């Protein structure tokens, strides 16, 4: 019983992180038609930036998080302008581009701070008792931030002009351009949002688990799994997909051999792709 409760709390927290990372990936996929494999590296660099600002420069950890979100957002503008736009929608060139980005970012981190894993201190230390299990406040905090951000993003898409423009571009690029929507600006905003989400989730993840130069690789795979499972073009879909993958990651290794759990997850993704390539909730993109 206790194990079930603990793993479901872990599942929800992990899902919140997966959803935030996957949302960034899905945003770029639906608006620019590209798979940004460097998303995991951005997630990692964002976390290291917060760590550096908080531990080396001695800034308050919350302020460090905000500053690194701003810096990574600015990096997003740069990425869109110089790395994604010149290859306008050519998915396979962008894969090469993003691998170059992964190499640069990961090597930069390894060279400057070293390859060892470290940990970010908890934002709010301490535990809270829920029923019989005690949960660290940081986990609750992560969950809270995740939910708040999702509500914020939903509002952004549904209520603001920018959000409606992003929706229009993701549905029909040319049609949106004909209506006078600035596609490049929309893409830039999407990249900025994706980078900020990645930074935030990277920082939260590194205070919950660990911080290392290669932590982005695993997260990238998870984000791709979520995006494929749920399909693109649907906010709610990413939510459900993230919950499924998050719970599978938190619960399956407890009840069976972790390697078998991994194989099962991959098997499910392959089946989904074969039976319903657009994902559970999305629409056909290509």
């Amino acid at each position, binding site marked *: 019983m206790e194990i079930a409760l603990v793993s479901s709390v872990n599942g929800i927290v992990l899902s919140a992180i997966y959803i935030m990372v996957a949302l960034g990936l899905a945003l770029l996929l639906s608006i620019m038609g590209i798979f940004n494999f460097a998303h995991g590296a951005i997630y990692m660099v964002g976390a290291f930036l917060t760590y550096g600002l908080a531990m080396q420069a001695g800034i308050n950890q919350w302020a460090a998080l905000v500053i690194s979100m701003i810096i990574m957002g600015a990096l997003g503008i740069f990425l869109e302008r110089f790395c994604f736009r010149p290859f306008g929608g050519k998915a396979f060139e962008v894969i*090469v581009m993003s691998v170059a980005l992964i190499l640069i970012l990961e090597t930069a981190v390894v060279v400057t701070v070293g390859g060892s894993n470290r940990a970010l201190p908890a934002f709010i230390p301490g535990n809270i008792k829920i029923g019989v299990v005690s949960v660290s406040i940081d986990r609750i905090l992560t969950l809270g931030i995740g939910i708040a951000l999702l509500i914020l993003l939903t509002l952004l898409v549904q209520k603001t002009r920018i959000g409606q423009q992003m929706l229009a571009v993701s549905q029909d690029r040319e049609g949106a351009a004909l209506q006078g929507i600035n596609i490049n600006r929309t893409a830039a905003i999407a990249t900025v949002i994706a980078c900020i989400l990645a930074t935030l989730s990277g920082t939260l993840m590194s205070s919950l688990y660990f911080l290392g130069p290669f932590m982005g690789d695993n997260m990238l795979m998870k984000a791709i799994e979520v995006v494929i499972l749920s399909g693109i073009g649907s906010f709610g879909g990413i939510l459900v997909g993230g919950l499924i993958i998050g719970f599978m990651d938190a619960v399956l290794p407890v009840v069976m051999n972790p*390697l078998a759990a991994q194989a099962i997850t991959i098997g499910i993704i392959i089946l989904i792709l074969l039976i319903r390539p657009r994902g559970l909730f999305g629409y056909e993109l290509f």
Partner: protein
Amino acid sequence: MLKKRFFAGKGKYTGAAIVALVVILLFLLPPIGISRYYIHILIGVFIYIIMTSSLRLISLSGQISLGHAGFMCAGAYTSAVIAKNFGLAPWLTIPLGALLTFILAFLVAIPFTRLRGLYFTMISLFFGMAVLAINELFQDITGGQSGMVGIPTLFGISKIPYYYFFLALTLVCLFVMHRLEFSRIGLTWKAVAQSHSVASSIGIDEARQRIMCFALGGLFAGLTGAAYAHYYVVLSVTTFSFFTSIYLFIYMMVGGVNSFYGPIVGTAVLLLVQTFARGLREYVPFIFAAVLLLVLYLMPQGLAGLPAQLKSLVQRRGNPPEKEVIGRVP
């Protein structure tokens, strides 16, 4: 006038001459006396040249695979496990590994070819990961992350027989792939890549062609993997990870996906750059990334398209003519 006639055939045999020169040079390298280390590096280059070229063979039919290392893994482990556990000679198990990989690729391709474009790429990516996951699941046979040891060798300790073996293997494989590409089959595949609906309308069985293409690519990958196992003798799943597949894809893209020589040039250049830059230790990935960026921004046709690009630059004819585009999502 005379001069013009004299040089009329110029350039016709330049390509063949360069190829012949390179092959002769490669055959002469060990007698000239390059060090063991460079022989080892060159064997690695040969192995990855076959891998990248077979990846491009698959891309001829418009399918970009990101799980190609999975087939290498399958070939390597089948050959190694059979040779180790049943005591068969590597000469028998290498073809056996290739054959089994071919069957695997064929069976896998039947459902996979239902998907096109980026969806196919994604499913191939997860296929590559599934191979690794299954491999790790049967840890007691394959060794998993910690590696598999005790695989019988092909020739013993000296590296020179291996060098000639892999050189010959590469040349044979490249020859077969070249024949495939410039035959009727290759043309059919290119037709399928350009437009599957037009190809079906003129009577090409699209699914069958794509399955065949994918299975043949798997055959070459399995063959390479099996030979790899009996040269390196130690196998670990990390060699065949997702990133290996990505790197194969990058070698192909950097070399130029539209040219037969693209994968060869791309693999050789990128692997040798890493070798020569190894004095920089942890900064090597920067060099690698710099090459990628250089090619991406300045050479849209890849390294193999560079001569044509330079030629048109010298002649001031503007951009080189757009070549046919293979394996792109429309």
